[in-house]
């Protein structure tokens, strides 16, 4: 069974006195397989958070359907809530004046846990996310990473099989982020399915088996991470380093090469674009014969895919 099946999901925010009308999502299809970690990639405002909210029954779609483990989010939200855990990120959503333990006890009660079961579960989760030592201190004294771990514990309080993480490692230092990702891997090994909204390429490549790229409310790409780069339609390239301008010019002149472009970074880094995949080998050979031993084949990274498809939005949002 698929964990989440979204078909043609649309979400329009109606025009009000304070906001112009906005189409947040437009005909989105998404499939989260059982036991998979799936990246939902996109820039700010792309619709990732809206989609996560719809799937977790916090928001109703204006069109389309979403099924979570076979339950429809609009018709049977209670059943969906039982199996879904949400981890929204950052500072919001925690009662900062009270302790981590009190937060968990409260949310556990909201999910129907009580008595000894509830306190045991809280203890277990605090231990699991590494907060047991600070469990009784007010959340406002926690670091960003600790708050995020508490968010995760909160999302797991009712033992959901499906988890939505909304930019969980944003604002975290690298060590904390890596530890968090290990937690996610552990969760996956327990058979849970995870939808991870992020705009961290490395994280998506590292953790996720599939990636869905979304922008302006539309799905641009939905593919296995390993082969997502194929979506660019572009094929393999040959990267090399050289200070010899004449050599670079000659590469350009080669019949089986369409162009040579400069790569980002320090000077002298080049990328040769062969006409087709078959022309990679001859180009490599040509370069090696001329002692350009740095020549190597390369595939577009997820970051390139992202940048190419989303385009140069820059700061003009």
């Amino acid at each position, binding site marked *: 069974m698929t964990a989440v099946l979204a078909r043609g999901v649309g979400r329009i*925010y109606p025009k009000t006195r304070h906001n112009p009308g906005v189409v947040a999502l437009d005909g989105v299809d998404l499939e989260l397989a059982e036991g998979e970690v799936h990246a939902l990639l996109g820039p700010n405002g792309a619709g990732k958070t809206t989609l996560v909210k719809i799937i977790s029954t916090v928001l109703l779609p204006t069109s389309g359907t979403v099924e979570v483990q076979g339950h429809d989010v609009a018709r049977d939200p209670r059943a969906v809530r039982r199996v879904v855990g949400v981890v929204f990120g950052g500072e919001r959503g925690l009662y900062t004046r009270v302790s981590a333990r009190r937060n968990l006890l409260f949310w556990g*009660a*909201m*999910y*129907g846990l009580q008595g000894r079961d509830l306190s045991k579960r809280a203890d277990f989760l605090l231990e699991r996310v590494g907060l047991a030592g600070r469990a009784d201190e007010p959340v406002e004294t926690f670091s960003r990473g600790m708050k995020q771990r508490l968010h995760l514990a909160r999302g797991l309080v009712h033992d959901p099989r499906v988890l939505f993480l909304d930019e969980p490692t944003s604002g975290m230092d690298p060590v904390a982020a890596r530890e968090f990702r290990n937690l996610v891997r552990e969760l996956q090994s327990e058979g849970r399915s995870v939808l991870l909204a992020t705009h961290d390429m490395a994280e998506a490549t590292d953790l996720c088996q599939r990636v869905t790229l979304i922008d302006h409310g539309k799905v641009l790409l939905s593919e296995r991470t390993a082969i997502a780069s194929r979506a660019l339609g572009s094929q393999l390239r040959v990267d090399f380093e050289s200070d010899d301008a004449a050599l670079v010019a000659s590469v350009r002149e080669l019949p089986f090469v369409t162009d040579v472009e400069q790569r980002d970074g320090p000077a002298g880094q080049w990328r040769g674009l062969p006409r087709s995949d078959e022309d990679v080998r001859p180009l490599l050979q040509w370069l090696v014969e001329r002692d350009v031993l740095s020549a190597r084949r390369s595939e577009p990274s997820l970051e390139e895919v992202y940048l190419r498809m989303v385009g140069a939005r820059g700061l003009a949002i």
Partner: protein
Amino acid sequence: MSRPAWLVQLAAGFRLQLAVTRRTPAQLLVIVTAPLFSTIFLSVALHYGSAHIIDVVVGPGLIGVWAISLDVAASVLSIDRWGGQLELFLGTSASLSLVVLGRILAVSAAGMITFLESWLVARAGFGITVPMEHPALVVLALLITAVGSAFTATLLASGFMLSRNLHVFQNSLSYPIYILGGIVVPISTLPDWIHPISTAVYLYWSADLLRNAAGVAHPDRVALDTGMSLGLAVAALAAGVVLTSRFERRLRVDATAGYG
């Protein structure tokens, strides 16, 4: 041995609020200012000959419970909304009105102490001991006032969330209620046209109950006062539950529920 879901949610809200208030002492401001109110009332009563001492001692207690409930009702949902907790809450199947009620109850109950403060100010500040003829009834009356205040404040909390404008009228819900509820000055001394309006205010009935419990030798309207007070409060709560689910539904549909 498992408790029913509604009780679990109510208790969870109650406990959460206890923890929050412990760290946000500003919410207990009413308890600090109550003795000054008592001083004002008592000075007036004593200056003019100490008639109706019971009324001026009981009054601040009632004012305290209502004021503190109104105060927290006005803020609990809006703080949660802008703090992101409301969003998370919508992902659970718990009842928002029950949790809000539990939270307000914690504060209303704390407000009961203002009655004791009032009694102490009379005793220590002015040398007047108000004899508690029926202490058990006094406690009952205070509890009913606290519960009634919490129920009514829950209705207000959802009203505040649905309409931005209503919030500005929050200020109008204190003194008008004190007058209409006959909290210090009995309704009988006010113009006739006010009487019917007063009977719709739960405080009118619980004020009567508390006055009788504190002073009169044979409180004969206990059943009526208790029944009316609780009845009105329950009606308010029911309306609050309805409004709250409307508010929740609007949040899910619009993601705005009346605010920009």
